[in-house]
């Protein structure tokens, strides 16, 4: 089975190939369009037209690359060249010259990408590493890790680790977290615990560092928050179900975004 990667020529880009030449980088950032939100059932012609529309819109912003992302992946599983690998994009303020961006052409606040889109993103990540555009030990983040935005969307962000995996995609339970969860999810949980620590004046949780590692400090913070909120915390190193959802949903989104952007 092969996936389609349509080049700028193939989708009919109107702007000349732009973006400064860029060497191998060590950082991959995941985005979503949000708008437009292109369904999996869209035709190739529709996807090409949307690509040209986004290109025109980004060009009108005065950007040096249009579209601003290196690659775009639609829910159909088809991929399109944005500014392209090896060229500097315009996607994440402060790290445009040291990172590449994959953008899902959907609304990641409403739904995570389809399995076909995840599989394509994985293949493109391997393509980027094998092609020398991305170091094998690259860092993987979402746009929200760098700006006070929801991008790549609340439904997509917990799963961005799927871009890294060569294994068949697994749908990590968004309502559970444990010591083996991906670092970005543990960071999110640590941010939540720190917020609760501030609200309830819990020394063990207040100011907890969001370092992505579930160590003794994180465990102590979780136990303190669980006690204060009258959650069970019966099993150490694991939080799941309604308690996890309740902890997350109590925290204002802007608090999470602000803290993760630090």
């Amino acid at each position, binding site marked *: *089975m*092969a*996936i*389609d*990667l*349509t*080049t700028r*020529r*193939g989708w*009919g880009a*109107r*702007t*000349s190939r*732009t973006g*400064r030449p860029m060497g191998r980088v060590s950082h991959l950032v995941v985005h979503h*369009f*949000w*708008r*437009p*939100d*292109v369904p999996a059932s*869209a035709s190739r*012609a*529709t996807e*090409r*037209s*949307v690509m*040209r*529309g*986004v*290109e*025109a*819109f980004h*060009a*009108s*912003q*005065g*950007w*040096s*690359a249009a579209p*601003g992302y290196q690659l775009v992946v639609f829910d159909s599983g088809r*991929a399109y060249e944005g500014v392209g690998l090896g060229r*500097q*994009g*315009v996607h*994440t*303020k*402060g790290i*445009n*010259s040291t990172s590449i961006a994959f953008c899902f052409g959907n*609304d990641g606040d409403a739904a995570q990408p389809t399995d076909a889109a995840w*599989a394509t993103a*994985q*293949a*493109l990540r391997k393509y980027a590493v094998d092609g020398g555009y991305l170091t094998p030990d690259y860092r993987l983040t979402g*746009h929200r890790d760098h*700006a*006070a*935005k929801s*991008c790549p969307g609340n439904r997509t962000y917990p799963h961005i680790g799927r871009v890294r995996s060569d294994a068949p995609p697994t749908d990590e339970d968004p309502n559970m977290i444990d010591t083996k969860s991906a670092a970005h999810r543990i960071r999110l949980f640590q941010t939540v615990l720190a917020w609760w620590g501030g609200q309830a004046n819990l020394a063990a949780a207040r100011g907890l560092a969001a370092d992505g590692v579930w160590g003794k400090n994180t465990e102590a913070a979780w136990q303190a928050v669980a006690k204060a909120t009258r959650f069970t915390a019966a099993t150490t190193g694991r939080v799941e179900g309604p308690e996890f959802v309740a902890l997350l949903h109590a925290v204002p989104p802007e608090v999470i975004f602000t803290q993760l952007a630090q």
Partner: protein
Amino acid sequence: MAIRLVDERPPEYAESTVEGDLAMAAEAGGLTDIDEAHADDLAVGVLADRDVVQRTQAWLADHPEAVQR
């Protein structure tokens, strides 16, 4: 998984227009309001394709509802 490059000019290339493509994006939900979270100083440059920029700006002036926030 193998990657197959599609590099032929699309059949609609000659007939497509900037305005038609912007309308297609608008029909698919709109265009995301772009803010400072994307661009930095090094990412702002001069595109040679002024016609695309001017036609887009004119279309956006007529369709402000297409830009979603």
